[in-house]
């Protein structure tokens, strides 16, 4: 058994016995991990109140590899995201990010790029003058890339010619194969595209997605665009992640957006 220290973001916390909690973290050094926080619900506990979803903490825990549940012994804020609970949009998107991580990542599979993406995305959501839906699309897209499902936005799946997104208006995107089909091939394939589960997306939306693969979470969160485009890119990313992760069927946190004024990805 060893004493370990790592940065961690709380994904979930459920009550355990009379005064404890079982907390699921996404950690920088050990990936997804669950631990018992003894006495965390005791009002006198010094750090019990920190074990709540969305909190970005430094934790110390006793680690035994053979054990499914570790014991967390102390904890401190790395950064407190104070605006994540300030409105329905920000809150639902923030919760959807941790829900996605909880569903898509496996236990103790370390991936520092994913950790940094999550921490920076929550940080971006917490900032002023940012658009939560941008963050959803940017996060989902870059998570897919970090997991090895890099989408192709450059060349036609069928003829391999480069796609000129400045010229084309609408493109068919075959989500399963992770690539677009150019206009010429679209007219040739026509019927076959639908049976392959192709998805119609506007060229401006694909251009934004392409740029999102290169932007930091903070820069992407501030990108200006029409609301319709925001919906289009988040919808695309949701469908793409669903298809490729295999473990993500719905995002419960997004149902919350029904109470806000906009559309949300995956809305029927």
């Amino acid at each position, binding site marked *: 058994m060893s004493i370990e220290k790592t940065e961690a973001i709380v994904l*979930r916390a459920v009550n355990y*016995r*009379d005064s404890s909690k079982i907390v699921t973290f996404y950690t920088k050094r050990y990936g997804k991990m669950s631990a018992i926080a003894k006495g965390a619900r005791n*009002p006198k506990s*010094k*750090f019990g*109140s*920190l074990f*709540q*979803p*969305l*909190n970005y903490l430094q934790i110390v825990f006793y680690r035994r590899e053979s054990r499914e549940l570790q014991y967390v012994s102390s904890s*401190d*804020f790395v950064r*407190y995201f*104070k605006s994540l*609970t*300030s*409105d*329905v949009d920000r*809150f*639902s998107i923030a*919760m*959807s990010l*941790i*829900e996605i991580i909880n569903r898509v990542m496996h236990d103790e599979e370390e991936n520092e790029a994913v950790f940094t993406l999550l921490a920076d995305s929550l940080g971006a959501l917490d900032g002023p003058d940012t658009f939560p839906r941008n963050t959803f699309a940017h996060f989902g897209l870059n998570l897919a890339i970090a997991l090895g499902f890099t989408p192709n936005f450059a060349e036609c799946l069928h003829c391999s010619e480069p796609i000129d997104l400045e010229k084309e208006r609408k493109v068919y995107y075959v989500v399963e194969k992770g690539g677009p089909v150019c206009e010429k091939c679209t007219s040739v394939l026509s019927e076959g595209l639908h049976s392959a589960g192709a998805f119609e997306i506007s060229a401006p939306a694909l251009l934004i997605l392409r740029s999102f693969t290169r932007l930091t979470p903070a820069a992407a969160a501030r990108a200006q665009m029409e609301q319709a485009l925001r919906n289009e890119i988040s919808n695309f990313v949701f469908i793409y992640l669903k298809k490729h992760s295999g473990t993500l069927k719905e995002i*419960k*946190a997004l*149902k*919350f957006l029904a*109470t*806000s004024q906009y559309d949300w990805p995956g809305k029927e």
Partner: protein
Amino acid sequence: MIYTSQALETLIGEFSKLPGIGRKTAQRLALHLLKAESEDAERLAAAILDVKRRIRYCSVCLNITEKDPCSICSDAGRDHASICVVEDPSDVIALEKTNEFHGVYHVLGGALSPLEGITPDQLRVRELLNRLRGGVTEVILAMNPDVEGEATTIYLGNLLKPLGIRVTRIARGVPVGGDLEFADEATLVRALEGRIVV
């Protein structure tokens, strides 16, 4: 371990369905009852049945009660224009102990949880909206200071503010008798936000 008595096995099974009771504790409780006097066991069984038969939900505030409407809702001395919204009946008990609140309550029956998929239609939100038609001037949101409570507060705030009712939330911050030095960042930020003029 499997007991040779089906009756004992059934009792252990029932106990272990209770919150916070594992199989071991359930066995201990069952064996304790086995040794107890018959009258003790009968009193326990009667108390359980009594609770189920006599206690129901108040048709106005949805708190648990023996008579409907409950004693708070039928008290003419209380301010019926001021509704304090809480998650559970235990929150009503806690607030009543302070003797500070003279309005009435509304028990939601839980909190919204984006992660567990608990949505407004699973709580008594519509019942709250129906009550607001009758001259209510203030709604006080008294949710637990956790993520679910936060979600519920934002949601109800958005829903109620356009109705022209004064909507307030209870303050969050440093606990009385606590030490500022040991308070975490979240608590301090919330305490600063909720500061008041002295």
